């Protein structure tokens, strides 16, 4: 199946124009945090401290880091299970993420839902459900509200290759296209839906579906965090200019099994090896070392933060069983989602958005 990757030079030029050094470090930091937290959680899982199942996004960190970095505080995100970096960029506390995996009372859902099924509503993140890609419609609805109220904001949803086979993908694409909504759809094409390869999922190159629904489709190297940022930034610009949705196909590879219980024997070893050479973190580290950044110090700092967060999470209590039936209904006022953090320097200086 042919894939169309944006020429490397275009992405680099775009990124270079919009990213300061601090931004590029931020991107690496977010990816390191994601990988580090997930590695720690995987260990805890193997020690029997994480109930249920555990999912990670090893090898895909750039897709969520780059994408989320282009989102403004007032934008809204529907984050999926291999997109931990998005939560970190919005400002979610790592200790609460680890507590969430452990099922503690201080976790982001206080034990009501597990693993990556969370979203801090005060930071503008909506947590996912297991039925994929339901959240594409939620993001479409948020974008619909922004357009109705004439607000310069957009919504973004991540979803995987497998989920594009379900009806909600088509309803969301169609709806967003018909109403020309300010929404960014990020298709994380990581080559496998559990054990199902792409050949069993699509009859066409999925990027073609954007045109079928009446809007722009862009394929990007999903393991190049700066290219991912640039593509998302451009898509956001398009959305705010009233040009409607963008489908970004981020090409990447799922380097671990579907979940901690899956050994992914169905993936050919050559394929894994091929993609290992394109690891997103290594690539960004190489870039930053070449401009003199002390990557090792950054790694150490990130690890120390994760260690501290783990201590806090392990000390947190389990939820009180008496609260199990509380909170099914909202009893007071409905509070909408809040704004999240947006560390990109471009949001501070007006000219960078041009």
């Amino acid at each position: 199946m042919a894939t169309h990757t944006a020429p490397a030079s275009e992405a680099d030029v775009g990124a270079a124009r919009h990213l300061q050094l601090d931004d590029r470090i931020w991107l690496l930091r977010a990816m390191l945090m994601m990988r580090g937290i997930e590695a720690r959680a995987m260990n805890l899982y193997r020690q029997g401290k994480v109930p249920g199942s555990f999912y990670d996004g090893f090898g895909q960190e750039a897709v969520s880091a780059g994408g989320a970095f282009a989102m403004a505080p007032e934008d809204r995100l529907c984050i999926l299970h291999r997109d931990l970096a998005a939560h970190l960029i919005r400002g979610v506390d790592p200790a609460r993420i680890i507590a969430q995996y452990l099922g503690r009372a201080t976790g982001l859902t206080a034990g009501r839902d597990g693993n990556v099924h969370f979203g801090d509503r005060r930071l503008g993140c909506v947590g996912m459900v297991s039925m994929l890609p339901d959240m594409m419609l939620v993001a479409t609805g948020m974008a619909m509200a922004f357009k109705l109220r004439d607000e310069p904001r957009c919504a973004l949803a991540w979803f995987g290759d497998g989920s594009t086979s379900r009806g909600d993908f088509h309803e969301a694409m169609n709806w967003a296209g018909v109403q020309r909504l300010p929404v960014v759809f990020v298709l994380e094409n990581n080559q496998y839906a559990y054990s199902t390869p792409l050949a069993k999922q699509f009859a066409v190159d999925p990027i073609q579906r954007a045109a079928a629904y009446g809007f722009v489709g862009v394929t990007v190297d999903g393991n190049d965090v700066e290219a991912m940022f640039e593509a998302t930034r451009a898509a956001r610009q398009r959305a705010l200019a009233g040009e409607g949705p963008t489908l970004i196909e981020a090409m990447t590879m799922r380097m671990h099994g579907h979940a901690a219980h899956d050994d992914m024997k169905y993936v050919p070893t050559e394929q894994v090896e091929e993609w290992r050479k394109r690891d997103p973190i290594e690539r960004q580290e190489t870039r930053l070392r070449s401009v003199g950044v002390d990557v090792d110090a950054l790694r150490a700092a990130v690890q120390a933060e994760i260690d501290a967060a783990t201590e806090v999470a392990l000390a947190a209590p389990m939820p009180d069983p008496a609260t199990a039936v509380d909170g099914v209904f909202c009893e007071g006022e409905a509070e909408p989602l809040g704004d999240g953090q947006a560390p990109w320097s471009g949001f501070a200086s007006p000219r960078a958005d041009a």
Partner: protein
Amino acid sequence: MATMTYLQAISAALREELRADPRVLMMGEDIGDFGGAFKVTDGFIEEFGADRVMDTPLAESGIIGTAIGAAVVGMRPVCEMQFSDFIACGFDQLVNVAGKMHYRQGLAVPITIRLPSGGGFSGGPFHSQNPEAWFMQSPGIKVLAPSTAHDAKGLMHAAIHDPNPVCFMEHKHLYRRIKGDVPEGIFETPMTARIARPGSDLVVIAYGAMVHVALEATADLDGASVEVLDLRSLVPLDRAAILDSVARCSKVVILDEANMTCAAGAQVAALIAEYGFEDLDGPVVRIATPDVPIPFSPPLEQATLPSVERVREGCRELLDY
């Protein structure tokens, strides 16, 4: 105060909400230019514009999913499923995204879903359902079923003001067949039961169109004093009112237009058997549509939906017990 039909009462409520609250947004198929399959939103688009009376694509999952998205960024969407039967196409979004959201994330989803339901006019299996029990069983969703024009308006206001997902069962049979006095201006009917007729020998518990069948069937029944309790709200269910009626009447007939198995009445029966046992002077009787898709041809349809005669007979038998 004005006399209006059940349908007019719903329209009036929607109009007043659209005027009073800029966050309210109506979404549905054919509701804008066409004014809705039943004309509930006739004339709305002229007053409120296409943005607020939105003609959506034919996509029930899409309607509910996007409504959820709009709601969590501050809107108050009121979605319409053209027929309640089509909620099946949006079931996943309603039950898994909307219903569970607040429990999991503390994020409220203030959407209202209007569901024209019920049979009696040869609509056939896909235009005649009463699917409320599916949503009574799904945590996080409120379910309302008014039987009068007054309550249709008051409960619609209450539904829109509520910060939770609310299924509003509008009974199609009642749209133009019943009228009542309805206050103008925004008011809320509480989500409780209402005694449609007080009595002491037996109580018929019903909701929606069945309230009227119950009233007619028991208006003149061998001189017996038959109470009719209109549940009005299925989630939350007014347990106190149910048990209060049972305490006074001791004989209960529960009426569902929905299919018998696990209908709302089954939950009411269980409640009574457990908490009202000491007050019972006879078995808890249920009358409902059998577990069949609602048939199309009139003799078949009449044979399935609970009729006035069937309810009379059932009450008479229990009175004699």
